[in-house]
């Protein structure tokens, strides 16, 4: 087992990793940028190293600085969290060369799944259902038009080096394809420094269903059920739940088995998530695989009674999974709401600054993952995730009730957050019925932050007042 883990991330996931390391008796190192000098993980870690100024490129993405921090502190493993370097095969290689264990899958697996068309190819070979499209980057706009014609519109153009909902463009008709292709290339070049593009059939009115996988380094792989993440705004998840009410047992079994088969085929180990699109007709299609811990992992942990960060660490340290698929028991229903420091009434603009007031919810059936505290500063340089509120109860209706209750307790004072959106969401009849699809938010959310169809008073500032 590792003596000392260096956490090369920030915010709530740094706290998450730190907590499990503490529970396992592993010493912790927090690396941080100037903007995070006063953050909770830095204060609580056994050691901390400032690795650069606020901009990510000079801090959380600064591989040399992180490696120097490993050398300075004698860390024997690093946990990359999500985002930043968590899916950077170069970083995983550098760690391996330096003799520091990267807590995650191998660099080869990261590279394979990070190359989205290559991942499609590998999963297709494993028999994972796939939407029509191309399994390699397009050679140009002309080929894009030809493949799109065969695939059938609407199609979605995607950056080969993208993922996580970024660098994608839906094309409804052939007339729009050439300009959409150029835009996608340009965006990909800017965001990923890789302008390769591929395309797939766009599944209209789909749901996003993903499967949590956990594999050891000796070929043992299990799934820990699925999560439904269909509440998204501009391809960014806002709320997630498990199980998905769109699946019956038979379909759930098929999707989870397909995910395990795909992971087993490539020899996957560590935690990972396979994402699917579920069409209205009940067909499901591979979208991508994420080779990291995901933001919404608590929803699975609550149902499975398993600490995913702990198992990532144990697996990286060479331990075998002591449980097989038949030992995995998922109980109840869990929902997570992402509370971001963004203002839904002002185009979801980030609202950095001083968080004067922060009172998180608590009590039975509630879990809060956060790094926030009263008086903390929300820097403008990073994502706006402030806290994750998770409710877990025997049934979905009870989980909704618990979440509604928890959201009334959450008090962020005058700071602009997305809590008003979630309060409204919990009252919306379509969400309550579980019939929502990926177009839910774009269909109902107004620019004023009002979720049409939800209870009128739900989102108001007074809805949470004691």
């Amino acid at each position: 087992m590792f003596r000392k883990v260096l956490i090369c991330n920030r915010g709530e996931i740094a706290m998450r990793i730190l907590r499990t390391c503490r529970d396992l008796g592993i010493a912790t190192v927090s690396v941080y940028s100037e903007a995070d000098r006063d953050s909770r993980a830095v204060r609580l870690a056994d050691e901390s190293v400032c690795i650069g100024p606020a901009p990510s490129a000079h801090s959380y993405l600064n591989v040399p600085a992180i490696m120097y921090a490993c050398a300075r502190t004698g860390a024997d493993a690093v946990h990359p969290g999500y985002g930043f370097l968590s899916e950077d095969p170069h970083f995983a290689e550098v760690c391996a060369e330096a003799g520091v264990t990267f807590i995650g899958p191998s660099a080869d697996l990261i590279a394979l799944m990070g190359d989205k068309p290559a991942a499609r190819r590998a999963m297709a070979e494993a028999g994972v259902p796939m939407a029509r499209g191309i399994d390699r980057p397009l050679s140009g706009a002309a080929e894009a038009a030809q493949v799109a014609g065969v695939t059938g519109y609407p199609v979605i153009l995607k950056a080969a080096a993208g993922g996580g909902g970024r660098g994608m463009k839906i094309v409804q008709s052939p007339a729009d394809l050439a300009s959409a292709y150029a835009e996608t290339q340009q965006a990909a070049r800017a965001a990923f420094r890789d302008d390769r593009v591929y395309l797939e059939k766009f599944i209209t009115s789909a749901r996003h269903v993903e499967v949590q996988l956990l594999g050891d380094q000796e070929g043992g792989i299990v799934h820990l059920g699925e999560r439904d993440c269909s509440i998204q705004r501009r391809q960014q998840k806002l709320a997630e739940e498990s199980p998905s009410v769109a699946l019956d047992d038979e379909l759930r079994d098929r999707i989870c088995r397909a995910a395990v088969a795909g992971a087993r085929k490539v020899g996957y180990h560590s935690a990972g998530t396979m994402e699917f699109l579920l069409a209205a007709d009940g067909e499901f299609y591979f979208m991508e695989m994420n080779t990291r811990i995901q933001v919404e992992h608590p929803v699975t942990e609550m149902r499975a009674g398993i600490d995913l960060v702990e198992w990532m660490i144990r697996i990286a340290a060479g331990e075998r999974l002591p449980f097989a698929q038949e030992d995995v028991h998922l109980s109840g229903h869990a929902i997570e709401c992402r509370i971001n420091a963004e203002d839904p009434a002002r185009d979801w603009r980030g609202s950095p600054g001083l968080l004067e007031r922060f009172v998180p919810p608590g009590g039975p059936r509630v879990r809060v993952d956060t790094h926030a505290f009263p008086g903390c500063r929300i820097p403008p340089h990073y994502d706006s995730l402030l806290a994750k509120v998770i409710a877990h109860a025997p049934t979905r209706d009870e989980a909704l009730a618990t979440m509604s209750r928890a959201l009334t307790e959450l008090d962020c004072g005058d700071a602009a957050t997305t809590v008003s959106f979630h309060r409204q969401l919990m009252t919306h009849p379509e969400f309550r019925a579980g019939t929502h699809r990926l177009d839910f938010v774009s269909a109902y959310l107004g620019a004023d932050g009002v979720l049409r169809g939800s209870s009128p008073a739900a989102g108001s500032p007074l809805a949470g007042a004691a």
Partner: protein
Amino acid sequence: MIEHPNHNGRGPATGQVPCGPAPDDLPTEAVIARVIDAARVLAGIVSDGHVGRIAVSAGAVRWEIERHEEPFGLAGTRAREMEPATSAGGRSAVDAEQAGGGQVVTAPLVGVYYQAPGPGLPPFAALGSRVAAGQQVAIIEAMKTMNEIVAPCAGVVSHVHVQDTEIVEHGQPLITIQPG
């Protein structure tokens, strides 16, 4: 006279700014207008990133213009992205702060601190030695790139906070110089 105690640039900044005549009592409107014009010029120098703080005296009139690193407003306002003050390789920027009367020279990046140009050679800035503004006082090596760390002001080295070949973190104090 222009002072720039927070030196974030590549060499001492020079520049002439017109100052008004020294008023005997309350400044006239003309003087105020020229002072405001001069302030605009100075604010421009500060905001372009090379200088963090400027203090200007003109007779009885003195003001100080300082750039804030992280503009935090009310929740709902967007703070602007700050450019990094350092460049990898070559002469590196140094963040100088007032600390107990001395200027503390801090590490602008993570890497290995070297006190001398080479092993066994005399240190750049030994304790008690006198340094000139802009004189090299250390090397921080990162990935085989030797970053020169320079003194922000002339003075005497009153403290050395780090050991030769120590891995330093961003912002770590290296030496303190008593200006003069």
